[in-house]
């Protein structure tokens, strides 16, 4: 089973957590990303996630392998939802087990940050106003003359600002 996966249905965290169990592990850290009701001044009513799954799974696996190399943790998993999500639905789950807690927190943070920046997944926000837009794409489209500046922004402004509390 791949350590990075997609699901079209609700993420089963109880089941995923079981895969992290290890007699040598002293604990585990998880992160859940939830659909938030606002972004950049707009009232969000639902989200659609879409992924280029063939490449996304490869890149996701590379991130998890990097995390296991960089941090002395036991196991790491990431599950990402695709399809239409309602407010408060879980969009992504990351779990890491380790001997001690410090490296589990560090590895979990590393994984979610890298997933947001590197894995080919897109989200479309639907707003109360009736408008909709692809996050990180529409502002660029409005100002193609500033491509470089915007690209810089994409790589360094965590998408966390747009969805996670």
């Amino acid at each position, binding site marked *: 089973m791949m350590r990075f996966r997609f699901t079209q249905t609700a993420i089963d965290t109880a089941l995923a957590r079981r895969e992290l169990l290890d007699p040598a592990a002293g604990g585990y850290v998880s992160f859940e*990303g939830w659909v938030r009701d606002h972004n950049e001044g707009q009232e969000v009513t639902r989200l659609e*996630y*879409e*992924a*280029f799954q*063939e*490449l*996304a799974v*490869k*890149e996701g696996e590379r991130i998890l392998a990097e995390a296991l190399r960089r941090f002395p943790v036991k196991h790491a998993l990431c599950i*990402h939802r695709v399809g239409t999500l309602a407010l408060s639905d879980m*969009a*992504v789950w990351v779990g890491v087990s380790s001997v001690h807690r410090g490296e589990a927190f560090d590895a979990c943070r590393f994984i*979610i940050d890298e*997933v*947001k*920046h*590197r*894995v*080919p*997944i*897109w*989200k*479309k926000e639907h707003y109360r106003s009736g408008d909709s837009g*692809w*996050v*990180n*794409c*529409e502002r*660029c*489209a409005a100002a*193609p003359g500033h*491509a*470089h500046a*915007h*690209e810089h922004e*994409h790589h360094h402004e965590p*998408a*966390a600002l*747009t*969805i*996670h509390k």
Partner: protein
Amino acid sequence: MQLKIKIQYYALMREQAGRSEETIETSSVTPADLYGELSGRYGFTLAREQLKVAVNNEFSDWSRPLEEGDAVVFIPPVAGG
């Protein structure tokens, strides 16, 4: 020389192209050329510098020579999580 290339579209690119995939005969020799050709056809709003590109399900250089039967995906700025 014409090459047969498959293109898959996702997210904003899919909406602007009005399709999820197509196979075309093209004289473009690199993904960069191909993006220029298809921008002319579909009026993509994103500049190439804002995108990444994948060939045969792996990230690729924009200047890699295309080969017969390659599958190309243009990757707009990502927003997972």
